[in-house]
């Protein structure tokens, strides 16, 4: 029998375990039961002693390390971490979970990439652990956990508000009836059997709902709970003096994360930052840079342009690399952010009609927030992580929020996000540039020309010829919205 605590470290069972072990002062002690559980894990590789955690803290760190390696390391080997998927490890794992959650909650903000990584890690570890179970065990434990998580018989879809809002699940993927999410087989048959003809209702249940949807909801709910827990710790830690051991673990986490992320991202060149090439901007961004009319103005500058320019300049491969970075990883003293990126954003903001900051000076704070530095006048290192560094919204979203700005061209057909447009177009342009260079005899001169034309492009962005500025709103203001029916 597999314990619910193996999957849900926030279950009553798990809390019981933690209470029994209790004492924080022992988390650095060598633990022979733990070592034994690790040693006897199926397919665990023993080649390297480094792989074997000897106490709770080491186990906690191993959990983080596993996830970073798995996500980024081409040479990741499951066997190095097989013990994480051994159910015999449950009672140690739960403690390690709490050590991590508390250390992270104390040291980092709840929107920080450290917290986010931890939540993702928890979701991932559950998925992999499920794979290790037999079908009947899997079904059984999932049902138990759901029963505990969902106290009332039926879940209302509104109960999943946060999960829906964070796009972990889409509304249309759930089977809804009278406001409730249908998960249970009996319930399904009772409601829909009459309506189904020519097909076997039970089979239909298996296909449409069955285990996968239940597991998905279970995992997402535990992730949400984990996130909430870290947040709670974060709030508490402002009032209560944290245990020094936990502070120490926080330091360790911070260190392995920044080392690893630097290592993996620079190793394939994602992390240097690139000069902006305005020729490669997609149509929506070009329009925004020319200044936007009041209807779309605030969203275009704060939501679209801010994240687009910051990522295009600092980390255009964010979607490919799928890592969580912060601005200071690429721009440690925020020089690029302050001297290059912000001026471009502010400039476009003031070119709007009416100028953005004249009406809405507080939008400056929102811009800072979208870069990951909380609600402050300007980005400062000490505030980093108070909010998220927002990635640019997808074309789909732009088409809803800012339809007037989306004027797709040929390149748009191949992409789903303005940033991917930028990457693909800059690559194309570079290639063309290279070809030209090859065919030209006077290489040096060409290089000079090229950098000059880069400069021109930036100038073009900063001073667009007024006749080209496009008026592109026809309708009401979103933020100051109104209905002209």
């Amino acid at each position, binding site marked *: 029998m597999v314990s619910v605590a193996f999957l849900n470290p926030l279950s009553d069972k798990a809390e019981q375990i933690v209470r029994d072990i209790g004492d924080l002062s022992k988390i650095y002690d060598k633990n022979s039961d733990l070592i034994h559980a690790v040693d006897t894990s199926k397919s665990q590789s023993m080649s390297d002693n480094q792989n074997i955690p000897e106490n709770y803290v080491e186990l906690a760190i191993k959990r983080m390390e596993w996830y970073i390696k798995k996500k980024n390391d081409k040479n990741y080997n499951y066997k190095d971490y097989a013990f994480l998927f051994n159910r015999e490890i449950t009672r140690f794992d739960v403690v390690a979970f709490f050590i991590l959650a508390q250390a992270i909650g104390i040291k980092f903000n709840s929107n920080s990439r450290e917290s986010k990584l931890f939540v993702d890690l928890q979701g991932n570890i559950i998925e992999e652990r499920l794979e290790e179970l037999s079908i009947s065990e899997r079904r059984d434990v999932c049902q138990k956990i759901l029963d505990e998580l969902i106290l009332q018989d039926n879940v209302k879809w509104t109960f999943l508000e946060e999960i829906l809002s*964070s796009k972990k699940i889409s509304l*249309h993927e759930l089977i809804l009836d*009278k406001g409730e999410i249908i998960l249970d087989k009996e319930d399904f048959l009772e409601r829909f059997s009459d309506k189904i003809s020519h097909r076997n209702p039970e089979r239909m249940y298996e296909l449409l709902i069955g285990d996968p949807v239940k597991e998905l909801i279970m995992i997402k709910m535990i992730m949400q709970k984990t996130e909430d827990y870290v947040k709670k710790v974060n709030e508490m830690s402002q009032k209560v003096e944290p245990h020094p051991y936990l502070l120490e673990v926080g330091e360790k986490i911070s260190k392995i994360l920044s080392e690893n992320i630097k290592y993996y991202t620079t190793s394939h060149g994602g992390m240097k930052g690139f000069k902006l090439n305005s020729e490669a901007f997609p149509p929506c961004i070009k329009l925004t840079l020319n200044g936007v009319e009041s209807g779309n103005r605030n969203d275009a500058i704060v939501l679209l342009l801010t994240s687009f320019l910051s990522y295009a300049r600092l980390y255009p491969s964010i979607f490919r690399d799928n890592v969580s970075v912060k601005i200071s990883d690429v721009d440690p003293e925020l020089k690029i952010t302050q001297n290059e990126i912000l001026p471009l954003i502010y400039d476009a903001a003031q070119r709007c009609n009416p100028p953005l900051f004249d009406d809405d000076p507080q939008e400056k704070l929102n811009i800072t927030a979208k870069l990951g530095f909380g609600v402050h006048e300007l980005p400062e290192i000490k505030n980093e992580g108070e909010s998220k560094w927002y990635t640019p919204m997808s074309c789909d979203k732009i088409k809803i929020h800012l339809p007037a700005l989306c004027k797709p061209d040929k390149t748009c057909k191949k992409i789903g996000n303005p940033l991917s447009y930028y990457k693909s177009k800059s690559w194309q342009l570079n290639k063309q540039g290279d070809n030209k260079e090859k065919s030209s005899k006077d290489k040096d001169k060409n290089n000079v020309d090229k950098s000059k034309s880069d400069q021109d492009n930036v100038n073009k962005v900063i001073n667009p010829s007024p006749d080209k500025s496009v008026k592109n709103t026809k309708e009401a203001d979103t*933020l*100051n*919205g*109104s*209905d002209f029916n």
Partner: protein
Amino acid sequence: MNEPATLQERRRYYREEWNVKKLPDFIKEGMEQREFGFDHLGKGPNDRYRIFRSLEYLKRFMRYKSPFAAYCSVAFYDKPFKRADWIKSELIFDVDAKDIPIRTCMCDNVCEVCLGEAKEIVSGLIDTLKGDLGLKDIHVIYSGRGYHLRVLDETVMKMDSDIRAQILKYLVGSEVPRSEYGTEGEKYQLEHFSIPFGYPKVFTQRFKYAVLHLTPNIEMENISPALFKKVLKNRTYLLTDEWGLFRKNIGPINYKKLVKEIGALNMGLVDAKVSIDLKRILRLPTSLHSKVSMKCMEVQNIEKFDPFKEAVPKFVYERDD
């Protein structure tokens, strides 16, 4: 549609016909937490940030100013006069007859036909709001050129724009349901029309409505003229729900294309910007839509509602022409 209302007519309307007590209860309750906005000259609502602490103040204001148009926020604030300290917002679906992507009338503004179609669409949305999403406290407002669905169910009023966008997509049927399902490695084909509940059913209904209302003037980017013809020729199968035949006759690959295209078109059934905007102002029920000389009003029974009987103010009947 009627001629615009003159200032004289507006004055008559607000003094003789309009009654502040007739404001719907959902507006009266908590009125002091809403922002009001007015358009005095017919150039858009630029008199904003107004608040009214009692019905009496609003009554005097309307009598005295007889505005071209009156609006109030869908949001409730602690400080409505600054549009600050947001508390919650109604969930809104705005169906404007003029903007419906598929209309059979081909008029260039609104007419009885497209208003009727708007009504039909709104009824469908209400069914889904109640039946699938289990929401209550839903109000239908005739806006003068279409309908506003205003949901004041407490369970959704605090939701953010992202969820509102998802609800919208669910209601209008813009996401194509998957047609492949599988358990333990096996894949099964299951088209939306063979799933008579949940979102696939909603999608089936919206798809059917759209195909049955297609007119030759509608442009669909990825549908060739030949395919379009085929669709029109075979759509009668949908009247009798012979989906299998419909799909077979136009061909499975074409069917896939069509489904995708209709999903995209459906996104235009409702003005998405209104639904995701937490701070929008909407035309005030009972007020006059001066451009078309009609009353904006709450509709009690959408099936029976006829705007040309119920939403025409008296002064229109007394006009000379």
